[in-house]
Structure formats: structure tokens, C-alpha cells
């Protein structure tokens, strides 16, 4: 196998409510791989299972069957505690809604993922200042997030995803709630990250996203099955 391969998903299925009348299989025998530095898009209509698949790849939940090899380690069978640890070190997430916590400041929102890691205060603040600088949020550092504009909130969400220095950035329908101008801004930021060597996986059905040139590979997801395009 190619040593560049960061994630390899092998015949992974996920089932909810198994054995009950409402049993569903949002992901069936999906296989795909992601190489280091690539931008990979999971494309499909809503309800196709791409979000579940993204969650599986990002160690949010465990597959019912199949293997997920992350940096050479099979993570499919790991219990939650260790899955979380791996997720914390490897992935940054950007969600469809920004999912920021209202009532606390921009800085705190960005720092949240680091709280359970026990990192020292000095390191934390160093990193958060640097990120806010890059994403031009410094002037908003102490503001509560809910008074920020949509674009700024989006940038806070990105900063939060990057605070733990992830290898891979996962984005779930990142443009769903953005107008085209903000969407373009976002893609610009992602492009910038790619140029710095970040691996990015995006689940989307927005042509604006999967038709940009920075996308290396597109997987089409339909009824839980994955096909490379």
C-alpha cells in the first residue's frame, strides 16, 4: 500500500437500530482512501449517508463492520476513550452550522478543544493568538461569538478546527449556510490551508465546492454506497 495514504476505509458499513423494524444502513460497504495533502470531496444529496461516512472517517463513531486504517492503525474497534484521543490529535471539524457556543468569547470558543488536553496556559494562548492573527479575528478576541457576522463566525469555526494542529480537516456541508461571496471566501481559506500541506475532506452537494480546481478527488455517495468519480 502506498505510504502516502493517510486514511484507508475498507468495506465499512454502519447500521442503526439493528434487528429492529426501524433498522437502517446509512453506509454500506464503503471503501475509499485519502492521501496526505489531498482535498477529497464526498458528494451526494442530503440523506445519502455522506455525513455518517464523514463521522466514521473522523472517528466520531464506530462502524458496524469493516476496517478503517488511520496512519497504519485500525481504529474501527477502538473504544470511545481512545477514539476520542486519536480524533483530538488528528482531525479538525467544521460543521454545517457553525456550532459555536453562545455567551462565551471568540477566544474561548477557539480554545475549547484544548481544555481536556491539559496543555499549558502559555502554549494555549500562544496558539490561539497566532490563529486569530492568521484568520484576522484578533480584533474580535474578547467578543461573545453571537454578535459576530456570519463570515467571522465561520472563521471562528475554522480557527477552532485548527487549534489542535490537526493532520486532516473535515468539513460537513461548510457552505450550506453561506451566501456565494462567503462561500468563495471559505474556499479561499481552504485553498490556503491546502497550500500549506493540510489534508482536507469535505462532504457537500454544493457544485461550487466540488468543481473548484483544488479538489483532487470526488467520491459520489448514494444510498450509502461510494463510487469514485
Amino acid at each position, binding site marked *: 500500500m502506498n505510504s502516502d495514504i493517510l486514511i484507508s476505509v475498507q468495506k465499512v458499513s454502519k447500521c442503526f437500530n439493528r434487528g429492529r423494524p426501524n433498522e437502517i444502513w446509512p453506509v454500506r460497504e464503503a471503501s475509499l482512501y485519502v492521501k496526505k495533502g489531498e482535498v477529497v470531496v464526498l458528494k451526494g444529496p442530503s440523506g445519502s449517508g455522506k*455525513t*455518517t461516512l*464523514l*463521522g466514521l472517517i473522523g472517528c*466520531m*463513531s464506530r462502524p458496524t463492520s469493516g476496517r478503517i486504517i488511520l496512519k497504519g492503525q485500525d481504529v474501527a474497534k477502538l473504544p*470511545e*476513550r481512545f477514539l*476520542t*484521543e486519536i*480524533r*483530538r490529535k488528528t482531525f479538525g*471539524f467544521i*460543521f*454545517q*452550522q457553525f*456550532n*459555536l*457556543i*453562545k*455567551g*462565551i468569547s471568540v477566544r*474561548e470558543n477557539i480554545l*475549547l*478543544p*484544548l*481544555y*481536556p*488536553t*491539559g*496543555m*499549558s*496556559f502559555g502554549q494555549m494562548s500562544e496558539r490561539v493568538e497566532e490563529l486569530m492573527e492568521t484568520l484576522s479575528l484578533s480584533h474580535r478576541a474578547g467578543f461573545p461569538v453571537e454578535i459576530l457576522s456570519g463570515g467571522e463566525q465561520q472563521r471562528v469555526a475554522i480557527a*477552532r*478546527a485548527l487549534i*489542535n494542529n490537526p493532520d486532516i480537516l473535515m468539513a*460537513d456541508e461548510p457552505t450550506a449556510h453561506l451566501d456565494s461571496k462567503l462561500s468563495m471566501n471559505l474556499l479561499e481559506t481552504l485553498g490556503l490551508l491546502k497550500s500549506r500541506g493540510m489534508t482536507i475532506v469535505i462532504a457537500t452537494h454544493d457544485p461550487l465546492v466540488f468543481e473548484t480546481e483544488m479538489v483532487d478527488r470526488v467520491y459520489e455517495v448514494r444510498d450509502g454506497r461510494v463510487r469514485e468519480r
Partner: protein
Amino acid sequence: MIKHLKILEFALSSLLRRKLKNLAIVSVFTTVTMVIASILFLTHSFKKEALLILQGSPELIVQRIQAGRHALIPLSYVDAIKGLPGVGDVRPRYWGYYYDPLTGANFTVIAYPEGIRKTEIIEGSLPGANEHGYCLIGSGVADARFLQIGDELFLQDIKGRVLSLKVRGIFKKSSQILTNDLVIISRPDFDRLFGFPEGHATDLTVQVYNPTEIQNIAGKVKKLLPDTRPITRSEILRTYDSLFNWRGGMLLALFASSVLAFVILAWDKATGLSAEERQEIGILKAIGWETSDVLTLKFWEGASISLISFLTGIILAYIHVFYFSAVLFEPALKGWSVLFPDFRLRPYVDLYQCFVLFMVTVVPYTASTIIPSWKAAITDPDSVMRG
């Protein structure tokens, strides 16, 4: 360590973000703690006060029993008891109760005892040995009769005549538990007031040299004078002790129901996670918090609420009992005596009461929050993605 600090910080900010809800819990928790702490402090303080008083009382008191009731004791018993080995001084005491029809109260009247000394607890002057026509009164008596030093106290003697006594001194409020209903008068006035028969006393106090011999000597007195009842100091202490424990326990049992109500409230508040809170925990899980991290967060939230309410409750109870003399309990306590002292209790608080308090407030509260916290903590990390 840093991890706990950061999570604690976040816990506090979460609590502040939901001020109203948490304020409701804290105020109920504080009230429950305050009420229970007041009960404990009050009874404990009474107990201590009583113990202190009894510490100064004689080792052994000998009463005479006639037809199963306390009767006057002949002074001839004094010498009989003095003859027992190990017995020091034996003294007669003259005291009785006077029902005052004017105020409906019972006064404790004591004949001016030998060897009384000027103490800090009395205002005014002490009379000489052969004076009569005076009295020293407790502050409860003074208040009931609106008396000041120099005024006259009028009592009705056994034949219905008026006995007028000049107030020479009033006991200070600080000694109220002991002296509230006290009237001290001279022997001749005492004899006249009650028509006391010659050669008799109310009871005898016996000094015993060796404290371990008290039981022994009590037994010998009983053998020598079968119509007497020797009462040892430790017996009195025990009675007091169990009385106060019982009172405290009864009140506490009554308040167990209020604790229960509080636990139900806590449960309700904690299980009924608002959509917003659920969302927040979902976010935390999604961005890399682990179940045990959320549990830690919930632990710190609960601990902060408990600590704040517990300490505030204790402090309020302290102020309530020792600065405001437990005003809230007055109706319940009034029944103890007509002349209820409006005393200022001396503060006695020890670690033990705090332990008890902790056990009946924090433990049930914590127990009621464990399962709801866990339910919140196991939220799926991908729940926010499923929206």
C-alpha cells in the same frame, strides 16, 4: 491539573450563562442547608450551654421521695450523709417555684445561698449576710415585670399577703439560659413566702472527693436513707443530652421531607436539560471532549453549586442562630418555657456538625445528579452533524 482548572473555569462560565436556572437551584439548596444547619447549631449550642452549667453543679444531689414525689428533706439527714467515708461537705439548698398570676410565668425562687460571690453576670450590688427585703432577679423576670434596679418586686406569700422586695441586682442577659427566671431572696423572706417548715430543706448537695466513687456513694446514701433519691451529675448530663439530641433529631426528621422535595427539584432540573445545553454538550463531544471530560465538567458544576450553597447556608444559619437568636424558630421553641429567653447564644460550631450537614444535603444532591449528568455525557459526538 491544568485540565481540571480549565474544565472548572468552563464549568463556572457555563453556570453563569444559565443564571436563572442555577440561581433557583442554589437558592433552594441554600435554604435547605440553612434550615438544617440552624437546627443543628441551635440544639448543639443548647446542649453545650447546659453542659457548661452542669459542670458547676454538685457531683451528687440528694432528694427525699415521699409517695413517689419529691418532698422536703429533713436537715437531720445532713449529718447522716456526712458520716459516710469519702463525703466532703453536705449543704442544704432552699428553692422552689413561684407561679406568678400576673404574667402567667413560673419563677424559680432560691434562698440566698451561702458563699455567693460577686460575679460578672450580675449588675447591681450583693446584699450582706443578715439583710432581707431585697431580691436579685433574672432578666426574664425583670422584663416580664418591667423592673429596674431599685424598683420593688411584689410577690404574694402563702397566706395571701404581699411581700415587697427591693431589686438589688439583675442578672445579665449573657447568663440568661441559667438565670432567666431566677429570683434570689433572703432565707427569712423565703420562709415567709413559702411557709417553709423548720428543720427542712428542698434538697441536699453532697461533695464527693473522688469522682470515681460517686456511684458508690450514691448507693450508700440510698442504703442508709431508703426514702432518698441520690442524683448524680452524669445522670443529669445524660438526660439533657438525649433530650437535646432527640429534639434536634425530630426537627431534622421533619426536614427530611423538605430535603426530599429539594432532591426531586434537583433531579428535575438536572434531567430536564434544555435544548441549548444538549446542543452545547454535543458540540463539546464533537470537537474532541471525551465522555469522562464531560462528566468532569458536570462534576465541577455540581461541586460548585454544592459548595456555594453549602457555605452560604452555613454562614446564614450561623448569623440566624447566633446573631438573631433563631428568630425563625421562635414559634416552635416558645413552647419550651413561658419565659423564653431572648438570649444571644454563644457560638459552638464544630467539624462534626458540618459533616452531618454535608451528609444530609450534599450527598443526596450529588446522588440525584449522577445519572442525569451521565446521560448528558454520553451524547453521541456526531449528533451535532446529524442536526
